[in-house]
């Protein structure tokens, strides 16, 4: 067993254990709170998803930067950026979905134009565009470089959007409902959220290893498939000419 396989096996088992622990803590041990009732259980899922989304997109941005700098340019950085962005998009979408599920009973609406929700949705759109760019058939080098730039633009937009929300807040105080003064969490809730963090981080790591390997295999398939097709066509050229009667049919 190679080291990567061993690591992924270890991460997979750890992820499974963490998910089981988080589920038990979230659904069985944690009771409903007075303010949030049963919906407080989303605490185990929603904040960890949101946080790891940023980790994933951060890894994409960093890997893209390393790819763009000629001294550190390696195929692996591009593959890592793509793998991480794909997982990040899934996590980002799940963040929005879980937030929406929480918003419906709490605020009475599935969607509201709150600054942070809008930011998150924009982030999703930006990285969906990035993934679309990655899927375009083109020369690998050209595509990788363009993708790296697109990832950095998406990342550069994050602080702009962040400032937009803080200015939005000063202008539309009433719209900003998510940021409440830091409230103490009860120990079981805190433990649930921590277990959730652990589970999502481990899951991210495990998925990243596998997605990265798939990315490498895809590239190898492209390369070797082309080489094989070339060899086959060449072999056809070298074959003895087709007998006349077979050719005249």
């Amino acid at each position: 067993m190679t080291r990567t396989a061993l690591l992924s096996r270890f991460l997979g088992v750890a992820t499974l254990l963490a998910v089981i622990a988080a589920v038990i803590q979230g659904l069985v041990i944690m009771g409903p709170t007075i303010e949030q009732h049963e919906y407080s259980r989303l605490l185990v899922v929603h904040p960890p998803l949101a946080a790891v989304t940023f980790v994933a997109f951060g890894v994409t941005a960093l890997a893209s930067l390393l790819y763009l700098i000629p001294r550190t340019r390696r195929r692996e950085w591009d593959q890592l950026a793509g793998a991480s962005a794909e997982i990040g998009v899934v996590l980002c979408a799940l963040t929005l979905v879980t937030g929406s599920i929480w918003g419906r009973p709490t605020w009475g609406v599935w969607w509201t134009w709150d600054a942070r929700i809008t930011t998150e949705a924009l982030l999703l759109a930006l990285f969906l565009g990035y993934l679309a760019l990655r899927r375009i058939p083109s020369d690998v080098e050209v595509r990788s470089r363009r993708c790296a730039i697109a990832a950095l633009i998406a990342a550069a937009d994050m602080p702009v959007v962040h400032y937009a929300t803080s200015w939005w807040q000063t202008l539309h105080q009433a719209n900003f409902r998510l940021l409440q003064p830091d409230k103490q969490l009860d120990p079981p809730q805190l433990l649930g959220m921590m277990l959730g963090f652990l589970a999502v981080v481990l899951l991210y790591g495990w998925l990243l290893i596998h997605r990265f390997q798939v990315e490498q295999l895809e590239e190898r398939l492209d390369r070797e498939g082309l080489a094989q097709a070339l060899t086959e066509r060449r072999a056809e050229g070298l074959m003895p000419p087709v007998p006349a009667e077979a050719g005249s049919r």
Partner: protein
Amino acid sequence: MWRDALLMAGKDLRVEARSRVAIGQVAPFAVIVLVLFAFALDPSRGILVKAAAGLFWVAVLFSALLTVQRSFAIEAADGARDGLRLSGLDPAGIFLGKALAVAAELFVLEIVLGAGVVVLYNAPIHGYLLLLATCVVATVGMASAGTIYGGLAVGLRVRETLLPLLTLPVLAPVLLAATEASQAALDGVPGQGVAWLRLLGVFAAIYLTFGVLAFGSLLEES
């Protein structure tokens, strides 16, 4: 760099002046969008006047997409991109020049659209100084971000559909800030628009810097 930028902008604007695509197609398109908004939002209910700033910037945003497409379509034809690469011009200058040309075209378009908003929507205009500053800064931001993405999508087979998907989310903060700043000007409270104007400035500065740094590596490839 600046000399190259002016050369490039002059070239693009000359192509535009001779082909008349911006004046003949993009500007009428933008005016049609304004008219369509009036159909969609019943003019008699006064929504149009209230939403004039937002509708104006949405129309500008759509036109910006067309302008950027056009700006890179002229480079895609007849291998002009290879010529550009071989010309020895500074890539940063090429970026600034193309962005400048797009910004100039958009600025003319904004004047046409502004007149359209006044005439068609009966929107009263106040706070000229803030409106002018918003238009200039927002246009620079749109043009620079759009030019980077135009360079990203050029030469790809699916660029027509890809460009809006990539560009619109990035330009969303510009739409938001420009709308709020113009609304503040129209409402006669320019003080409230200054924060938004600052945001537009930050946006324009980020993407101008980014384009200057990154455009070289977009151009050098095959």
